[in-house]
């Protein structure tokens, strides 16, 4: 509860939230992040903006990325300010996110 007057009845964890989505995970990572390029980035907008929370900063200043629960939305490459840091393609045909109630 963030305040007594606020009715936060369903604060679900991020894992629970993501578990509501159907992902057909392909073998090929469709997005590849070049951690070397990320090292020089100071904004790291992808880390907070990605709605699936797939970008994690690493101790050595790089970025760790996991493609498996990706919405294929495009937010990360749109907000990225380092050319070449994110190589973005769609998952192979039939794979990736499957929305039922979009």
């Amino acid at each position: 509860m963030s305040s007594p007057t606020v009715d936060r009845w369903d604060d679900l964890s991020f894992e629970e939230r993501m578990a509501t989505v159907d992902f057909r995970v392909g073998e090929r990572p469709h997005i590849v992040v070049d951690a070397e390029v990320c090292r020089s980035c100071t904004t790291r907008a992808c880390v907070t903006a990605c709605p699936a929370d797939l970008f994690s900063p690493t101790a050595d200043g790089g970025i760790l990325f996991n493609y498996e629960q990706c919405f294929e939305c495009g937010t990360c490459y749109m907000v990225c300010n380092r050319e070449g840091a994110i190589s973005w393609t769609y998952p192979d045909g039939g794979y990736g996110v499957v929305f039922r109630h979009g």
Partner: protein
Amino acid sequence: MAETPGRFDAVVVGAGPAGSAAALALARAGRSVVLLERGPFPGSKNVYGGVVYGRVLDEIAPRWWEEVPVQRWVVRRSTMLLTGTQALSVDFHTEAWAAPPYNGMTVYRADFDAWLAGKAVDAGARLVTATVATGLLRDRAGRVVGVRTDRPDGDLHAQVVIACDGVNSFLAKEAGLLPRADAAHHTLGVKEVLALPREVIEERFGLRAGQGLDIEMLGCTRGIPGGGFLYTNADTVSVGVILDLTGLAAAAVRPEELLADLKAHPAVAPYLRGATVKEYSAHLIPEGGYDAMPRLHHDGLLIAGDAAGMTLAAGIWVEGVNFAIGSGLAAGRAAAVAVADGDVSRRSLAAYRREVERSFVLADHKRLRGAPRLLLSERLQRHYPALACDLAEGVFTVDNPTPKPGIWRLLRRAAARHGVRLRHLAADAVRFARVYG
């Protein structure tokens, strides 16, 4: 249909509303057309923000309302201005929208898009799912002559390619029609679909069976340019926030936190009490409007729908699926004529641009070209919702024994509290009248 293996009159990429409409128009004109969909079924990659306005379907099926997979027919349309503790609503209900041809409907895209793709297939289009168009095929002169796919031996040759591959359209990017990345003209929508029993929805939102509500909201995004929405489906409620990408990146807030804020708002939370999350989703929206739209054609190539930036985000009107269908139909018709004439050059395909300029598709966008800038402006986003709420609170608070203040004084007081000068208010009223008048 004259059809040689591997060669078609047209390839349409993306079986969303634009692509299916384009394929339908081509098939009806007797052209051979392949409709490619990268998802396992049409609609599986698609998310929208609330309402499909159906009159554009008149052209597709005369009594479409008898067969379209609808969730609810929208009879209530609200606009809500929010602060952390207040909400001011303009709420409209009409029975005129409760009977054919209706006005707006809520749908699940997995159902709606699949239905529309089925119409294209019925007309003779060949739907191929689970197939990604990975690039354009071009001849030496740079003309588009087909697409490469991720199937083995997957090159598809065609006289015309219609790229309806959505907001990230890599085909339009490859053709040089869209910039590689353009955060300034895109928003991120995140949405939750929440399960509630049908009768509970109807009771809470004051609806009769089968009727629906759509609420658009402003002031619920911690100052990040954007807004929120809530709409009813048969036995779920969809709630989401729309966030300007540049603003989201600068604020360094996680999108689901803003959605959680909205769901916990004292004026919203009671609507959702006891509901369980059925699906979380996210999608980009091209919100640049008319002035950010790309060129729509190239030699052998047309673009339609979100790929062409055709979502109308004009506050009072928030539409997209109808524009996708309208542009898709026009692109399909223009492509069919070009193929029949044996001339698929950009000069010939420019007929598409002329047709959408004449129809609502670009006429609405052109008329409302100033709306995105106005709606995402600092004052409208950060100050006006709070100003309006404070004014309403001042008007409706009975503070006996203090005598009532005049409304003019309340307005000046609310404006001062939020750092808005009355001449700014007047100037914005004029801008508003210019954009929407």
